[in-house]
């Protein structure tokens, strides 16, 4: 204890840190200060939590499109507590917005923005906009369909102002209206490089101004003795922060943050929607169509922000007791009701997403995304022991087929596959030979990962799929016709019993179906059914 005292005294003499902290903690606060003033501290803590969890996420995150999605999937599926950290960051953002808005409402109702606190209020308004900007830029970073399509809409709205629109679009890296690597880089840079220092600067100014002018007293305070900030007010701030934090941790543990499929710019079925706190704007836009669109999208929000910003100059009356501030209370109630009604309407009128919101959280193996013909070719390769000479990933007696695509002519390959060496003949049938030719000359890089790792049962399932020419009617992993229903994600609405029965008697299970009857051996039926059930959406 004596040593500690010595260290503190040494530091105090050289830096004045102890008296600085004391000065900060023993600030006078008015007698009326209490539970209604805790929200600023909670907002500050919320920001610090976001900084902490954000840094943790960045430690395992690759900020480029595509890789961003893969690395986020790695965080939530492979890393211990990864799901929890992402949950804290995701729900922390939502809860931070709630706290910031409550803080603003409190100041509005109490009229705490009045002279001399106009600057404190305006810096606070900028902080609100910065908080929303975090939400907007962070929304893109998972790079799933939700992120991509939501941001497409955002950038299109930003492009509406006549004259400035094209420049805004270019600033957002979205020349021509599509979004890609540049938009992603700009949003990421804003989210982690531009906004945090700006926030810290604004918070410093905001807190400095609060300290300079003191916590806003109410008219009765004049007659009462002042209190100290520490410990009573700090105690109340800490308890409120703890309650906020308990809600956050509960949500991060109990409510899973969705991660859909990787962003697909060609997906025309995806219905984009913004984060819940922007839903009211999304709904309001529906009321302004054609030439009026800009009114709902740009003019009204701008006017609302301006009015908020200039509140101290609009409301120039004398400071009043809270109970007498009926105008301000009515305004807040009206805003909350309007916001709730628009949000409720938006939720009610937007059809539910057809995409499984957790699609990206399931572990998908490379083979599950490979078209069946390529997986079946891997099966043919294995069936006839091609791997004895063509070692995977290394040159052996035969060339390494994973190293480069084969440049041999088709005739040569067909002959080679029938008779790979003198006195050696394979058992491969013609369609299998053709499949192999296509595979070794045209396979994509995705096949490389599946080649050594695809389970044999799945490979056999794909071979049954190919042998029965399922692709003549069905589409699977992007290959095949669309006469019959596509087969990706069939497991979402059909079970094994249904599928197996359906192969034997299609009309019985789906009346009017034109699918012929397939009489498969029990082994083939099992392999094919398992294979189809394992192909994700």
């Amino acid at each position, binding site marked *: 204890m004596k040593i500690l005292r010595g260290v503190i005294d040494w530091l105090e003499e050289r830096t004045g840190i102890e008296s600085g902290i004391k000065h900060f903690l023993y600030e006078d606060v008015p007698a009326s200060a209490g539970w209604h003033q805790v929200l600023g501290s909670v907002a500050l803590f919320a920001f610090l939590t976001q900084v902490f969890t954000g840094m943790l996420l960045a430690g395992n995150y690759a900020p480029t499109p595509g890789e961003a999605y893969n690395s986020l999937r790695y965080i939530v599926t492979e890393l211990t507590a990864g799901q*929890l950290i992402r949950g804290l960051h995701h729900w922390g953002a939502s809860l931070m917005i709630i706290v910031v808005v409550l803080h603003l409402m409190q100041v509005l109702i109490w009229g705490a923005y009045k002279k001399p606190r106009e600057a404190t209020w305006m810096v606070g308004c900028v902080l609100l906009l910065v908080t929303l900007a975090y939400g907007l830029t962070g929304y893109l970073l998972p790079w799933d369909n939700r992120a991509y399509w939501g941001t497409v809409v955002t950038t299109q709205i930003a492009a509406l102002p006549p004259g400035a629109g094209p420049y805004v679009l270019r600033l957002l890296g979205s020349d021509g209206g599509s979004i890609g690597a540049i938009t992603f880089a700009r949003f990421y840079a804003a989210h982690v490089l531009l906004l945090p220092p700006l926030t810290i600067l604004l918070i410093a100014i905001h807190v400095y101004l609060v300290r300079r002018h003191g916590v806003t007293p109410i008219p009765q305070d004049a007659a009462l003795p002042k209190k100290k900030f520490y410990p009573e007010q700090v105690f109340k701030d800490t308890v409120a922060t*703890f309650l906020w934090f308990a809600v956050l941790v509960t949500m991060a543990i109990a409510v899973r943050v969705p991660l859909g499929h990787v962003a697909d710019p060609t997906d025309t079925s995806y219905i984009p929607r913004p984060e819940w706190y922007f839903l009211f704007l999304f709904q309001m836009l529906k009321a302004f169509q054609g030439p009026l669109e800009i009114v709902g999208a740009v003019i009204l929000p701008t006017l609302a922000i301006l009015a908020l910003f200039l509140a101290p100059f609009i409301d120039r009356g004398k400071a009043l007791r809270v109970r007498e501030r009926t105008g301000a209370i009515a305004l807040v109630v009206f805003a909350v009701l309007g916001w709730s009604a628009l949000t409720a309407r938006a939720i009610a009128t937007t059809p539910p997403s057809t995409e499984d919101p957790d699609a990206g959280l399931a572990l998908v193996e490379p083979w599950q995304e490979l078209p069946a013909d390529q997986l079946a070719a891997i099966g043919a390769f294995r069936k006839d022991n091609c791997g004895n000479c063509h070692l995977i*990933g*290394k040159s052996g007696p035969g060339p390494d087929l994973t190293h480069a695509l084969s440049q041999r002519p088709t005739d040569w390959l067909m002959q080679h596959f029938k008779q790979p060496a003198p006195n050696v003949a394979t058992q491969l049938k013609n369609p299998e030979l053709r499949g192999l030719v296509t595979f070794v000359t045209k396979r994509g890089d995705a096949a490389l990962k599946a080649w050594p790792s695809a389970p044999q049962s799945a490979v056999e399932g794909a071979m049954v799929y190919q042998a029965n020419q399922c692709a003549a009617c069905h589409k699977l992993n992007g290959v095949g016709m669309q006469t019959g229903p596509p087969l990706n994600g069939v497991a979402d609405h059909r079970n094994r019993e249904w599928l197996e029965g359906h192969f034997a008697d299609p009309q019985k299970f789906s009346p009017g179906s034109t699918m012929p009857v397939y009489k498969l051996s029990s082994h083939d039926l099992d392999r094919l059914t398992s294979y189809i059930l394992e192909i994700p959406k």
Partner: protein
Amino acid sequence: METTTRRSFYSAVIAGLGGLMTATLAAPAAAYLLIRPKSQKQSDLVAAADLAQLTVGKPEEVVFRRTRVDGWRVLNEKATAWVLRKDDRNVVAFAPQCTHLGCAYHWDEKENNFLCPCHTSTFSIDGKVLTGPAPRPLDRLVTKVDQGKILIGAEIQKA
């Protein structure tokens, strides 16, 4: 007296709740940063060379390709190992980094030992430290000989 009790109650609650929140954030952060990823699949043994290519008693640098999981990526990349054929059936594969600070060493034909050019550690043909600052013998890789092929694993065994 009453105010002292109230003050110390406030201080205790501030410290207690503050500590609890800090711990609640710090514990998952430590787990997230320090615990290995769940399914870090170690790739199997891969065929690296033919046994017949190697001369008994002469280490060779063997270059081969293997699949390695790197975070969220699966890489198919070049790998090397110094392989010594001991006799008709047995081989030893040394990981290609010096055990001192990880420089690439090579076989010094004249001196008949492995030499690391960084801090001149030398190792005998069976990996033992002869001179220099290296703290332990050369690390080994799991090997297997199957039908005339030398298979090498990715796992490093420290002596």
